[in-house]
């Protein structure tokens, strides 16, 4: 097993047990690899790359409960990245699917690309389209960094409603990003 695999796995396991710092580090270190992965495969669609990176980050977040501790992390990440890429190509039409090499090279960590291009869709703007019971919890907890209790007091929602709102809001956000394409 590669050193990257071990490092990322350790970070994600800490993240899944509630360590937000480890989670941030995990996302930050993984991101350049995702970007390089898509840049190499979507050479004809450079404008799509950063949007796809964001879509995959959000998908990984929403689906992080599907990672099993004994499972190779590389395979898990690769499957999500490839799934989202194929989905994008399918939506853009068959031509792109035929011209894009969909190799099963699972070496996620062979190339990395720090330089972020521009995402064309502003997730902030999409956030505004969410209903209040989802938008406000995300605003207060995820952007301003308040605790669930503080958010509950501020919005008049219960703590569990705040948590549900964030969960559903981020899922809805993933749907909105996809539909924007």
């Amino acid at each position, binding site marked *: 097993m590669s050193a990257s695999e071990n490092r990322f796995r350790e970070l994600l396991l800490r*993240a*899944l*047990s*509630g360590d*937000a*710092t480890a*989670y*941030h580090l995990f*996302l*930050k270190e993984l*991101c350049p690899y995702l970007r390089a992965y898509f840049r190499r495969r979507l050479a004809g669609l450079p404008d799509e790359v*950063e949007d796809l*990176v*964001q879509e995959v*980050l*959000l*998908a990984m*977040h929403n*689906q*992080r*409960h*599907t*990672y*099993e*501790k004994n*499972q*190779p992390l*590389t*395979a*898990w*990440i*690769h*499957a*999500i990245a*490839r*799934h989202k890429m194929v*989905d994008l190509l399918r939506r853009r039409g068959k031509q792109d699917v035929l011209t894009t090499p969909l190799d099963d090279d699972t070496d996620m960590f062979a190339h990395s690309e720090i330089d*972020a291009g521009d*995402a064309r869709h*502003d*997730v*902030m703007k999409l956030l505004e389209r969410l209903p209040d019971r989802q938008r406000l919890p*995300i605003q207060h*907890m*995820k*952007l301003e*960094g*308040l*605790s*669930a209790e503080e958010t509950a007091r501020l919005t008049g929602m219960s703590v569990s409603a705040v*948590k549900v709102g964030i969960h559903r809001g*981020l899922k809805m956000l993933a749907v909105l990003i996809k539909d924007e394409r």
Partner: protein
Amino acid sequence: MKTDDLMRMLATGAAPVSSAAVASRFARGLGCGLLGAILVMVLVFGVRNDIAQAASLPMFWAKVLVPAVAVLAAVPLTMRLSRPGRTSGPAPLVLAGLLLFAWSSAAAVLLDAPAAGRAELIFGATWKTCTFNITLLALPLLGAAFWVIKGLAPTRPVCAGASAGLLAGAAAASVYALHCPEMAAPFLGIWYVLGIAVSTALGALLGFRLLRW
């Protein structure tokens, strides 16, 4: 939004994730689906009248248990196919083995029987309804299995749907065996298997439509 901001947003206040939640969703979903199938069987078809005598025959238990073993193989298969990056594991081999067992028993019975009695062994008295009834009993289970899978992330939605259909069909066959009076291996090898196959195909079809994310 810059990707950096998105990552910060995702990480901020990220709650711990429990892995037990998936197993509990699976148990709840399949429990409800199985209950639904049993209810439909009892209310619509009724348990066979001679179940007390039938329970002393090995064939009765084969009818219940062979599909039940298929369920035991299909549950982990469906779980695996509902998670990104998982292979199908050993379950397809177990399922192929069960099919081989069902068909070879059917063939042995047919070869052993006089030519005139073979049609009776194949068609029994209920061949026209058997496959349809099993598919009907599979529906509550299929719905429950899809509800479970929707909470996960199948990257091969057609396979995950087919596996859920197989799981539902096999469980339905096991439940239907409590009603169905047929006891001939050729009948079971054809019409029961066909019922499970229809449910599997239905699952694959619906998987393509409903399990994309």
